């Protein structure tokens, strides 16, 4: 085995865990672990794929270290950090070494990074629980577009599954081409290609309520307290294109 190998996984969480498990067992220090989707031509590296075991024994084993630890591992997987696979590898390696106390060892670079990434992912997911905007379709389905930095569509779906349980809804992640569809107490997240996003027909009252919301949004601000910097800190501009109350502003400012 060669320390300069690049290892490939299929993009899924389980496959990544399996790859890391094998690398750890065989005492290999990878310089890079990449998802097949993100693979660019890397002529100087030796690209390898490790065969995967089908059981999820390793995941269970990691969960046993502690639930908090395992959740952080999963959050790192969801993040868009360029280096997330390696951070996960080293975080897991230290988890195996130190056990549940690993999450208090911020002195270790990979632990600090993993914890920061995890809180970033959860922060974004929490923010989007508020910022997601549904529009009502002719078919009475509610539809929202998102384009989050991290892959939080699963967290959001769990949230809306409880909240809008008697409605039917879809959330479409434009950045990842992921579509979450919910009807009758279940949601499914699927990969879609070429969804015609301008072809939806909206319900007859959609414009009316969007308009009322815009009126409310503008009216509720107190002129004498104007504080755009604060507004932007709490609600970063990257979310504005999907929020109907901000759309005219985005078109002007982008």
């Amino acid at each position: 085995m060669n320390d300069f190998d690049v290892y490939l996984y299929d993009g899924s969480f389980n496959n990544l865990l399996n790859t890391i498990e094998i690398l750890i067992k065989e005492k290999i220090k990878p310089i890079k672990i990449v998802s097949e989707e993100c693979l660019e031509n890397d002529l100087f590296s030796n690209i390898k794929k490790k065969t995967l075991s089908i059981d999820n024994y390793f995941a269970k084993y990691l969960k046993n270290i502690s639930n908090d630890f395992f959740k952080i591992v999963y959050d790192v997987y969801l993040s868009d950090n360029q280096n997330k696979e390696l951070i996960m590898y080293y975080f897991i390696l230290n988890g195996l070494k130190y056990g549940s106390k690993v999450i208090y060892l911020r002195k270790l670079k990979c632990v600090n990074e993993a914890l920061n990434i995890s809180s970033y992912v959860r922060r974004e997911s929490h923010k989007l629980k508020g910022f997601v905007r549904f529009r009502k379709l002719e078919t009475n389905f509610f539809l929202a577009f998102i384009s989050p930095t991290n892959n939080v569509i699963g967290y959001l779906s769990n949230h809306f599954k409880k909240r809008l349980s008697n409605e039917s809804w879809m959330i479409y992640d434009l950045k990842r081409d992921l579509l979450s569809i919910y009807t009758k107490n279940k949601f499914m997240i699927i990969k879609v290609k070429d969804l015609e996003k301008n072809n939806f027909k909206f319900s007859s009252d959609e414009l009316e309520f969007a308009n009322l919301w815009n009126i409310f949004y503008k009216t509720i601000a107190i002129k004498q307290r104007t504080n755009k910097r604060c507004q932007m800190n709490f609600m970063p501009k990257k979310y504005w294109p999907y929020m109907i109350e901000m759309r005219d502003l985005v078109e002007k400012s982008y």
Partner: protein
Amino acid sequence: MSIEEKLKILADSAKYDASCSSSGSKRENNNGLGNASYSGICHSFSSDGRCISLLKILMTNCCIFDCKYCINRKSNEVKRALFTPEEICQITINFYQRNYIEGLFLSSGIIKSSDYTMNKLIETITLLRCKYHFNGYIHVKAIPGASNYLLKKLGSLVDRMSANIELPTNNALKLLAPDKNQDKVTNIMQFIKENKSKNFVNAGQSSQMIIGATNESDLNIMQMSTNLYNQYHLKRVFYSAYIPVNKDRFLPSLKMPPLKREHRLYQADWLIRYYHYKINDLLDDNHPNFDILLDPKTSWALRNLNQFPLEVNKASYNDLLKVPGIGPTSAKKIISNRKYYTLEYNDLKKLGVILKRAKYFILCNGKYFTNNNYFNLNFIKNNLLLEDNIDKKVQLCLFNE
């Protein structure tokens, strides 16, 4: 009158209430629409930087009272509107389904009588809960002077019910709101406290005080709010910088609302609720107002410099909280991490400590961040003021959830 126009009028006259919090409720979705989020969710931020969580509207801006600071007082010539219960339900449901809001914050001017107005509010919320099966968050303002059985009825339908104390002393209230008195407000608070349960105002009550409309000191204000926290178990007191909407010889003429002062009060309120400070630690008869240049915690630390510097590897949790730049989250992280290794200055940043503030008040593994001789009041104070000056461009942000 069109629904758009009504919404414009009734949102505009509701906007001065500072509260938009939607936290603290555990209401679940019971085969209907919506649930509460215990930590609260902000759905948008308006151009004044405030969190929008609830559809904050008045049922009507007609009012038989004449509170001097209020835009809706009866002597004002403003356009009046009234929402029907059905209209309020339609807007709430449709906004909620589209995830614009976390719920409804309904308040009202007083029409005919307190009880009549209460009954209208009850009718609206009953429709929302029972016909539309809405399980999202609802905050209502109780009408001062309403009968107890109506308070009981309305409280059993909502997550939060509250009454605004408006001003820090009864005299100020008499002066500016001749139709109100503190007893009417505290009676409501007492009733809510006594009846609070899982099925009655489960997210607790809050209140609001207007800052700068009368000449009370910060000490008066903090005494009132501490009293409210202790006596009626309020979840939050909101401080709202006075914004002149009416001209009146009893009202001050301010150009800008006292936002900085409001900010200091929120900071002090925070210190008392979460950091175990007492009012007397922060203010006394000789210093009845907060320092506008330095936050209350830093001012306290400078007055009590003999308690510093603290060794972060040894100090107790409560002592760590007293260090400017260390909050509950970073204090907890310090405690959990130092069990396993000795903390150095580099590590503190990773734990969320704001080092540029904290460094003056701590020792790290026995070392001060610079020469020990610099540990004196003048050096520290001048440096902190200098740094705050550099940061001045950063505008104040309200304490959000």
